[in-house]
């Protein structure tokens, strides 16, 4: 792995961003739908509360990974987010990185468990 110092807080933020990007793979969605879908697809493991979704969405938008646009459906205008090509590339790259981190963690956990017994 390239990193020598693993940033736990940064990793948690990256996971949140990946969750948002993942749920936008198939279609564009508005804010609360993204939150609901993530919660449903993860069986309630990942849920956004107290508006924590918005900084993630806006950071991704500023980074060019998603594009927000206002759409009018069923009367009221909603801000809908769609994955950009850069976002798709980022998602593919980051998925591999997360898999590597998790697999290394999984390798580490049994040895730690053995050491403690």
């Amino acid at each position: 792995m390239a990193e020598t110092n693993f940033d736990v807080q940064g990793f948690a933020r990256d996971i949140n961003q990946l969750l948002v990007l993942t749920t936008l793979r198939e279609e564009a969605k508005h804010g609360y739908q993204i939150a609901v879908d993530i919660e449903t697809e993860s069986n309630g493991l990942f849920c956004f509360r107290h508006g924590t979704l918005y900084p993630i969405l806006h950071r991704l938008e500023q980074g060019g990974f998603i594009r927000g646009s206002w759409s009018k459906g069923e009367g009221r205008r909603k801000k809908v987010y769609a994955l950009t090509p850069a976002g798709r590339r980022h998602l593919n790259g980051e998925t591999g990185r997360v898999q590597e981190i998790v697999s290394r963690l999984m390798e580490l956990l049994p040895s730690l468990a053995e050491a403690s017994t």
Partner: protein
Amino acid sequence: MSERVERAFLSTLQAVERQLPSPVSKRIDLLRELEADLEALSSGLESQGVPLEEARQRAVEALVPDPGVLRELARLHRPAYVRFTQGLERERLRILERSALGLTTAATVLAGAVGLSQADLLRDPSPFLVPVLALGAVLVGLVLMKGFQLWVKADHRQPDVGVRAILLLSGTILMTAFLGLFLDLFQLTRRLEAAPQLSSELVTRWIVQDAGLLSVALTLALLGGLSWFVLNHWQTLIWSRHRELLELPRAPANKPTP
């Protein structure tokens, strides 16, 4: 969507707005997004059989940012200028801003003066051109300052301060020029009385002097008026969107509600 739902979240939006120190345009966008999501989520919950009040409460809990998240949002939406200068001490930044403003104004005035000195009409200027140019320099400085404050720094705390002064200065420039024109004319008549044989030369000189004076004054007043119009129109537009979104009462004398 119904007015009923929109009004249900109005006080929530107003409370969020008070805690969000972002530029007004960003605030409006964020509050609109939040309102649409609140409404959609509570409607969705209602359609699943959740009672109305509970649906609204759950939507607020899920979507309304807490103070920490609002601070993060405000940090995310800082103008590029604020991000760039965040490492500087406030006092030092103030001095730098004023120096930059002074230099830009001086450079603009200098460029204008060079242009004027090359124009034939200003070869023999009216003495009233000096106050007109001095007022013009103040006008240029004020327009640059206001534009910098509103659009570069995105500081919307006192948006209307100085905007009317731009219009006032433009009017003062015009009045000074017309006053100069009449006083020059008065002087001309006295000289003509004293030396009628020089009438052709004196009249020609007066025409050249005051045509230059009026040209400069009209140009400055026009630029000032145009700047005032753009600034005023932008403010009216953005603050009316803000008032409309939060259903705020229209402030007296068209003054925005901060």
